[in-house]
């Protein structure tokens, strides 16, 4: 198959012919002259024109609803580019029939850049499609992640809303360094929020909730209304703002006698539950008790104080809570903590019910994750200046199973803000090993004393006195006598 040795003549002047197809014909004709062999020339013409015709039909079909586009320059541009692309395809296809020394001429003809681009796109369309799909996937994933991140941020904002209404304290006594803003900070930690849970039915005997939670009211009794100070953090002030709604949850254990949790011991288990429920009712200690079968019993209304926390301290980013009976809801699991042993204390049913109840309360009162803690992490003995006076859940509380962040990683306020510490007795009770947050908090407290050029013991004493004052003030508001323990 021979190829003519003439160059392709310049393209026709597009202004002269009135019909676009004439322009296309002229273009095809000029390239057809590259072929000297009549069969090859005929093949080139037939194939190129057939392709162009087909592509024109396809384009018309796809633009069926936008016929006006056919009269626009962009349509002509596309058609012309596709024509050149067809020519290129055909030239390349035919070049294999041409002697090697003449092949370069067919592959190296003068074709406009736009046509080469279209040809390139057509040739590598599968690669482009794959890359496009990957890019779209990445983009979608990015958008999804952004939406999720924004959603979490919005949830966090609403979760913290009650707290943000309060003013941020700034005052600091001279000579005493301000407590760092971070000891009990929950920033950067999980601030998960439960799904929306609502009450679906209520009776004198029980309440049922949308997450399957069922609260039994058989043992429900009354105590006194809640009332507590919001003590601004890092401030000398004891706080003037009084609040009557619960701010969080403290998890306890009942510490009653427990039999082996087996089927043949069923009667005994139930009897023990009945005994502890009756005891709790009389003492008005907890708001809820979850027995070993996972049944949730309400003991006190949520808007009333319970006798579950006594001498205790907890703090979130903005406020310190002292004597948590009035500010926190007490949930107690029917379980016992043996000194030095803190594992395997709950049944599966209790864990499940604990999560249900946590979600019900958090959904109802919008409790921040930061204010859901355990008795062992709040309880203090002001007479000895030690922590973990009550050591239930001082370790191994399944925060994650409750949908909460691990508070054992947080520096507790009773150490960072009040200088409470531990002794051998405390260590013996909790298995001779402190949780990471306590150790970090103690180190921070010592640095704080050093920065303030005051001995650690002197600072402890001073802050313990402050605690006592704040606790007495809290009790006085309720018209109750102050006891040290």
């Amino acid at each position, binding site marked *: 198959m021979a190829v003519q040795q003439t160059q392709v003549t310049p393209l026709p002047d597009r202004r002269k*012919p*009135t019909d676009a197809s004439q322009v296309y014909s002229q273009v095809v004709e000029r390239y057809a*002259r590259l072929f000297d062999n009549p*069969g090859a020339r005929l093949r080139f013409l*037939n194939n190129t024109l057939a392709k162009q015709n087909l592509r024109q039909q396809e384009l018309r079909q796809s633009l069926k609803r936008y016929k006006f586009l056919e009269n626009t320059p962009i349509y002509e541009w596309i058609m012309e580019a596709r024509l050149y692309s067809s020519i290129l395809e055909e030239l390349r296809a035919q070049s294999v029939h041409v002697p090697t020394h003449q092949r370069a001429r067919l592959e190296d003809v003068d074709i406009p850049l736009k046509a080469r681009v279209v040809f390139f796109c057509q040739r590598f369309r599968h690669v482009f499609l794959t890359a496009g799909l990957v890019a779209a996937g990445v983009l979608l994933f990015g958008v999804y992640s952004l939406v999720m991140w924004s959603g979490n941020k919005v949830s966090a904002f609403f979760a913290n809303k009650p707290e943000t209404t309060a003013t941020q304290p700034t005052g600091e006594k001279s000579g005493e360094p301000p407590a760092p803003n971070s000891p009990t900070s929950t920033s950067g930690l999980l601030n998960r929020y439960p799904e929306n849970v609502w009450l679906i039915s209520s009776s004198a005997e029980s309440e049922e909730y949308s997450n399957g939670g069922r609260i039994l009211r058989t043992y429900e009794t009354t105590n006194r209304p809640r009332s507590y100070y919001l003590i601004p953090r890092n401030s000398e002030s004891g706080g003037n703002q009084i609040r009557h709604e619960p701010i969080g949850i403290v998890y306890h254990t009942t510490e009653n006698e427990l039999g082996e949790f087996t089927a043949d011991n069923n009667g005994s288990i139930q009897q023990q539950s009945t005994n502890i429920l009756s005891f709790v009712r009389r003492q008005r200690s907890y708001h809820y008790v979850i027995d070993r079968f996972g049944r949730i019993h309400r003991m006190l209304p949520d808007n009333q104080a319970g006798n579950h926390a006594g001498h205790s301290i907890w703090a979130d980013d903005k406020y310190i809570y002292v004597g948590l009976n009035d500010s926190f809801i007490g949930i107690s699991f029917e379980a016992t903590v043996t000194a030095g042993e803190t594992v395997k204390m709950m049944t599966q049913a209790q864990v499940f019910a604990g999560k249900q109840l946590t979600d019900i309360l958090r959904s109802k009162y919008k409790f921040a994750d930061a204010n859901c803690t355990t008795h062992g992490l709040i309880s203090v003995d002001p007479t000895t200046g030690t922590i973990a006076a009550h050591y239930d859940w001082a370790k191994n509380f399944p925060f994650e199973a409750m949908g909460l962040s691990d508070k054992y990683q947080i520096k507790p306020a009773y150490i960072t803000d009040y200088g409470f510490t531990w002794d051998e007795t405390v260590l013996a009770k909790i298995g001779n090993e402190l949780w990471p947050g306590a150790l970090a908090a103690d180190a921070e407290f010592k640095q704080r004393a050093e920065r303030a050029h005051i001995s650690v013991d002197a600072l402890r004493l001073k802050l313990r006195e402050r605690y006592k004052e704040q606790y007495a003030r809290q009790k006085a508001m309720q018209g109750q006598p102050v006891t040290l323990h």
Partner: protein
Amino acid sequence: MSEEKNSTTPAAADGSGEAALGLDIGTSRIVLAGGPNGHKAQTQLNAFVSVPYSKMTEAILQQNKMVYQRNGKEMFVFGNDSERFASFFNAVPRRPMQYGVLNAQEAMGQQIIQAIIESMVPRAKKNELLCFSVPGRGEGADSNLVYHESILKNFLQSLGYEAKAINEGLAVVFAELQSENFTGIGISCGGGMCNVSVSFLSVPMLSFSIPKGGDYIDYSVSQVTDESITRVRLAKEESLDLSRQPKDKIASALHIYYDEVINLLVEKLREEFEATKQLPKLERPMPIVLSGGTAKPRGFLQKFEAAIKRDGFPVPVSEVRLAGDPLTATARGCYIAAISEIR
């Protein structure tokens, strides 16, 4: 049927060309084109003579190495030998085709035409392409065309070819108008009819035929001059010059009937151009190429040109020319079509 054939070397059987063949199946001739560029052509008359079987006749045929077929009590001499045999026995050759298609009045027509083709076209090795010519639509030929095309296609496929029909006029365009990128008017003036195709960049825009050709002229002249068709044909092929005044009765009659055919052809062309809406806007004049045995006599081209100029023509014509080899142009065009189909 016992048969005996002379051994011919088909054009593509020598392996010199590409694996494609072009076959012009005309009313009076069958032409095979193959080899490099399709220039290797082989021609056989599309005619036969039948004689009663006798041992002596068969011996004569064998002595003269003529191609024949015996069918019971009859013997058929066909192809180029039919003419020699006819003059030897003073017989008139018969035609398996009439007006461009299979002759329904010849019972043996189909078998004879197949025998002629078989004598020219070798069996395909691996589904090679073969393009064969068919006439265009025309007066009274439309329904026969389908039958004609199917019979030939099936037969060629039975020889192992991938057979494709090509309009005769278009084949002329393919053979002769390469330099115009296959844009122009191709006219094949054959024995049975004249075929016309108007092509734009190899795409047929208009194709038709008229049922008058060389046979019509021969027959008409024979009728009016009371001469045998063989003699008329001889006069036509040996001494006819349409550009000069006729010298005898036969020449005069030939002039008259040639004029009729040419005028009819040009008139039909005008009509078809005016009736069609398919033609693209032509930016340059179109060439006209004439081919076929009927176009061969001297002066035919001038007469045709004069007819075109006489009353004007619907499209501008750049030139009217005769095909390089009018007898093989259609076959060569078929060959080019076949080659273009090979990928």
